[in-house]
């Protein structure tokens, strides 16, 4: 952990060397997800609600997913660019060092410009928390915290799977984007909007709905069972298959040569 903090401050310092470029990229991150937000606003100003959810309630989903995603991407960036690391043989050096491979890949890259999106999520929360009509009792705040924190773990696992896949393909696979970038874009509506099939897929296969749709029902008092409050925690089970998959890939790893 201490070592990780060391890496963290190292990356932060090195990125702060190019301040203009840093803030420009951050602004860019902000702008790209802002256009999605604007689209959301336009849709809801035409249709008052979708599937029983209002604009402000949908914003809770948007901000939760965006925040979870940007935290995961900021710290898990090393897995996102893992195909590069594998392709240029850098990964062989990782394997001979006396630390876990996961740790080293994790520490190899952190991208703080991703916090541009985080900032936007915070701003949206500032508006949506009071406007969504939820009475914020302590248990609801805990739910929200669970949604964001467990959500970023799930996104992180998706990055891990993405990296694990590259052990087999060497190249990054574009279709994984559906679950990472796609989930960020489509998570702007509660996942039930997409119909039963998609919802059960996102519950039982890729547990994105567990930290978005079900706890939202609890927040909005549609469901009062504590079970709905704790669904994000169930989503943490996703770490097991993802880590097993990563290990499986790692064992099959054959160097790409130099």
């Amino acid at each position, binding site marked *: 952990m201490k070592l990780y903090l060391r890496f963290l401050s190292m990356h932060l310092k090195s990125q702060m060397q190019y301040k203009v470029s840093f803030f420009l990229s951050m602004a*860019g991150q902000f702008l790209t997800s802002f256009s999605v937000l604007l*689209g959301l606003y336009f849709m809801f100003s*035409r249709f008052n609600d*979708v599937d029983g959810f209002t604009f402000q309630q949908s914003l809770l989903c948007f901000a939760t997913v965006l925040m979870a995603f940007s935290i995961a991407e900021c710290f898990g960036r090393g897995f996102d660019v893992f195909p590069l690391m594998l392709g240029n043989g850098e990964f062989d050096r990782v394997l001979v060092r006396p630390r876990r491979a996961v740790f080293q890949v994790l520490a190899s890259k952190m991208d703080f410009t991703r916090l541009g999106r985080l900032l936007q999520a915070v701003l949206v929360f500032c508006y949506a928390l009071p406007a969504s009509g939820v009475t914020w009792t302590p248990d609801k705040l805990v739910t929200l915290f669970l949604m964001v924190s467990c959500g970023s773990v799930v996104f992180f696992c998706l990055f891990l799977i993405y990296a694990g896949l590259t052990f087999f393909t060497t190249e990054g696979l574009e279709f994984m984007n559906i679950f990472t970038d796609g989930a960020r874009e489509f998570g702007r509506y509660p996942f039930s909007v997409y119909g039963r099939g998609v919802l059960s897929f996102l519950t039982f296969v890729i547990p994105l709905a567990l930290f978005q749709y079900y706890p939202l029902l609890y927040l909005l008092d549609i469901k009062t069972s504590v079970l709905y409050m704790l669904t994000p925690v169930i989503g943490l089970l996703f770490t097991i298959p993802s880590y097993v998959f990563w290990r499986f890939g790692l064992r099959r790893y054959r160097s790409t040569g130099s």
Partner: protein
Amino acid sequence: MKKYWAVFRIRFSNSLQYRAAALAGVVTQFAWGAMELLAFLAFYKANPAAFPMGFSQTVSYIWLQQAFLALFMVWFFEGEIFDAISDGGIAYDLARPVDLYSRWFCQSAATRLAKAVLRCLPILVVAFIVPAPLRLSLPAGAGQFLLFLVSMALGLGVVVSFSMIVYITTFYTLSPMGVRLIAVALGDFLAGSVIPLPFFPAPFRAVAELLPFAAMQNMPLRIYSGNIAGAAAAQGILLQLFWLAALVGLGRLMMKNALKKVVVQGG
């Protein structure tokens, strides 16, 4: 003319090589389109009266948008061109007896076209056979289809000439990031890639429909779906012609100016 055709052909067959990447892209874009449509379907069910275009028109719009994504994506740039400008490779390009603007133009158009050719067919085929509310319908008629083809070619031209302007600004700023970010975020939205232009609120839409971004994917996709037909389609195509000429003119002018005092980077 022949040499530009050669640049186009080389680039085209070069880009055709990446078939596995194209396959992965097809899967992604198909899933993307399906999710997009399911969301629109939910809105349609919530309030069909507020829907600004027919639902089947929206379906056509989204499927074609995904199928021809490579032609119209505003955020796609050729790294090679940026590199040539910022690392000095441009010195070689300038020594060649080829007009640089036309060369880059052909190169970008060819890359986009090759990507689209590889990806569009499987997406279109599947889109024609998915179950009913999400199924892609045929264009309204042969005439409408012809207009669509013309408009699509012009749309590609507008997108490429717009990205040319972004490349050329790099001569002035050296770091492409700033201009590129703003151009992309703004252009993408105004082109109708997040939501189609008819879904914009009325005053906003009136302005957006006149901008060059509306001459990109907006026009061909809406002509295919029958949302714009007859005289309106002809008018739209004229608008596209205007913007194509304006952007190419502006790009050439900017380039001429930049090349007069070009400083080659690197040694």
